[in-house]
């Protein structure tokens, strides 16, 4: 008897790429704004980045319906936390919460590839990178999504940070300045857009530093 493949799948891939880079006192999170399905474009202006807390921003690519559900859940949990503890959640705390939230759907996963960017309790930039079921790690930079295989080697080359496992413990954050990091991100996306059909249209860059959150946009190729 031949294997029957289901005609309907609960998942879809809406494409897109996200990047986050941690600096000494800032964090840059960026994502393109194209939402696609198969070979069609659904929207040229869909934001994949959400502010979860004052010091924490999440960018997600993958299946945007699952991303939307995940964002709603995290926002609700953050609100409960604020009521119970009378303060905002820190980025490491949000990192653990996201990991657990993803793992609770271990047998019916959120098809969402996330990067969390923000400032830790000391004010240093931190980036957490996730797989679809919640395995996570604090890193100096990361990219997820359809263009990540194109961007990651470039970031490895430019930002190679010492492994967090080395002794003595060395800083994973990049010594680049904020403006240089933003420039690097723009370069990454400009190149990824050339070779990845799911990345393009517009780039949304969110910079988190001690002065707060600052957003900027850059046009990318629309084809």
């Amino acid at each position: 008897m031949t294997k029957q493949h289901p005609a309907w799948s609960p998942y879809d891939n809406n494409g897109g790429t996200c990047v986050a880079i941690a600096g000494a006192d800032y964090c840059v999170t960026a994502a393109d704004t194209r939402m696609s399905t198969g070979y069609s474009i659904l929207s040229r202006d869909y934001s994949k980045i959400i502010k979860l807390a004052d010091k924490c921003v999440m960018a997600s690519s993958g299946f945007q319906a699952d991303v939307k559900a995940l964002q709603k859940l995290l926002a609700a949990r953050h609100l409960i936390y604020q009521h119970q503890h009378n303060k905002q959640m820190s980025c490491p705390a949000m990192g653990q919460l996201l990991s657990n939230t993803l793992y609770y759907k271990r047998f019916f996963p959120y098809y969402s590839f996330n990067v969390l960017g923000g400032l830790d309790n000391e004010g240093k930039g931190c980036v957490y990178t996730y797989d679809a079921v919640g395995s996570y790690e604090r890193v100096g930079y990361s990219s997820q999504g359809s263009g990540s295989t194109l961007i990651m080697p470039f970031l490895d080359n430019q930002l190679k940070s010492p492994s967090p496992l080395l002794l003595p413990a060395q800083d994973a954050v990049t010594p680049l300045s904020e403006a240089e990091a933003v420039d690097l991100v723009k370069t990454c996306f400009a190149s990824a857009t050339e070779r990845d059909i799911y990345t393009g249209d517009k780039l949304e860059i969110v910079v988190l530093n001690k002065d707060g959150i600052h957003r900027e946009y850059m046009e990318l190729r629309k084809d």
Partner: protein
Amino acid sequence: MKLDTSGLESTSPFFGSGDELCPELLAAPSFALPLSTDFDEFQKDTKATLKHAKGTTTLAFIFKEGVMVAADSRASMGGYISSQSVKKIIEINPYMLGTMAGGAADCQFWHRNLGIKCRLHELANKRRISVTGASKLLANILYSYRGMGLSVGTMIAGWDETGPGLYYVDSEGGRLKGTRFSVGSGSPYAYGVLDSGLTCLLKKLRSWLEELFIMQHSEMQPVVVLQAFIMWDQMDGRSCLVMMLESFTTIIIQSRPVRWSKKWLKSQGHN
């Protein structure tokens, strides 16, 4: 299908009491299951689509002074290396270590959960849990999820009142007590070195331990073991972390990038 959700119970006290405004949100978390007719097929499909992070070599052995644990640090998703710096040795608590092999998320989550259970045991019984007990707790939870597609191959290494302890626990529900184990895609290579060279390793380790605090000059045998088989297995690499458990404390011995040994390079004709 009834799942053992005792592993998730510990979070329920954090939720508000009796407020029914948003019952789904405040209910104790449980694993949502897909409503498909063929569960296994669905799990296989998700695994193929999502390509969870895995691929590993870890090893641990008991020797005179304690337990030595070593692991590489690469995580792969399909053929793509998703990370070169994964911490595969997880501190369950200050006197117990767990290694990660198989699904990264599965190992991270269940080790953290085991840490919670061990702490609750300590508070309830006013004494630390034994390695036997901790490994049994983990094995029982994993057994209840047997067949659901979890991928966990872990070693619980610890120090309790009976001395050093080492157990191998996997997601099929297997649990073995032993003195040396290696788990992961690179384990066959590790076993080769571990099984043949162990007596001379132990001798070298003893003399090395005498110079414990002159770390930069020591040639770490477990590091050599790991490096030897990292060269043969594509799935691991980058750096290896070696931790040692010695009478209730954990010491990080060595953590350095994998590099080709000069002698081996010369034997291959490079200079």
